[in-house]
């Protein structure tokens, strides 16, 4: 039973840590959600170990701990994919910002007369206004 107590204590610490990160805005809610869900699941398992054994029997896994390992793997896999997707989004956003910054700098140089004038100096965006 001491091990379950340890698991529960760890969960409480993790929840507090996540809460702190959320409070100081160092983590966004959408990333914390999956960890909070995981912590709740671990608490349930810690409080009712027999639930795991019952589930393992139901799905046909001989050793209940293996079911836990498999579930943990699946969850971590999902988290990694989510992070890759978010990272790709951020890269795309960075790319757009980089383009905008470069174009603004060139426009600034042109209007200050540092950059040479183009063949016909007219701006489509300005015309549309």
């Amino acid at each position, binding site marked *: 039973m001491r091990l379950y107590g340890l698991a529960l204590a760890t969960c409480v610490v993790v929840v507090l840590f996540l809460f702190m990160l959320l409070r100081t805005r160092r983590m966004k809610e959408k990333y914390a959600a999956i960890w909070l869900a995981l912590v709740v699941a671990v608490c349930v398992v810690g409080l009712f170990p027999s639930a795991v054994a019952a589930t393992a029997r139901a799905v046909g896994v001989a050793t209940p701990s293996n079911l836990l390992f498999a579930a943990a793997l699946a969850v971590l896999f999902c988290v990694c994919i989510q992070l890759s997707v978010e990272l790709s989004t951020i890269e795309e956003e960075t*790319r757009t910002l980089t*383009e905008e910054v470069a*174009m603004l*700098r*060139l426009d600034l140089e042109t209007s200050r007369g540092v950059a*040479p004038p*183009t063949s016909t100096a*007219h701006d489509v965006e300005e015309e549309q206004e």
Partner: protein
Amino acid sequence: MSEQPEPLSVEPPEDGAAGRVLIILPAWNEQEALPAVLDDLMETLPWVDVLVVNDGSTDRTGEVARRGRTLVLDLPINLGVGGAMRAGYKYARAKGYDVAVQLDADGQHDPQEVPRLLETMLAEGADVVIGARFAGEGTYSVRGPRRWAMRLLSVVLSRVAGTRLTDTTSGFKAANRRAIELFAREYPAEYLGDTVESLVISARSGLLVRQVGVSMRPRAGGTPSHNPALAALFLARALLALLIALTRPVTTRIETS
């Protein structure tokens, strides 16, 4: 390069029929080759605007690019060729250019061939014209897995584009207003995105792709790699790029005029 004759001024096709032309050169750490390429461009094609997209270079590319009437787009972060090109096309769209021609900054594309691309564009009503290096012209040669990869790419892409394309990895391309509009939105920054995927996107968005044979100069620095392992990796990545490009949903459809 030194034994080449003095560059001659080349006239635009049909005196202004091509409209305002912007040459886009994506440059990453090209301080050695760039000044000569720019001088050649401005002497040969006095009727075009030249935009160097300095792709987060760590050398003096940004400084040496500012010569004559060159415009320089300084990207603070290295985005890769595809990223640099989209920035260039965005600039072309914002400034209302009729045609954008992309050229490699290492000098392997001859500015004298630009009018040939523009003439093909006008004659065939094409939206995208690729300057293709043909066997026998120029000095470019590849063998082994890299060659198979390029063959495969040209077979598949010819089918997708509905025209015979022999050199799908060429970085010498002309784009009209419709293509500029598409590329400003959708030029991929992935590996091979600037060549293979951009062609697939063009064809699948309803643009007319054509190619014209051009002669290439030897590359200013380095030779194409013949390492078989690298070539095999190129083949694998080319296949993956092709597979993804062909199956991804078409988000932009350019209305046929």
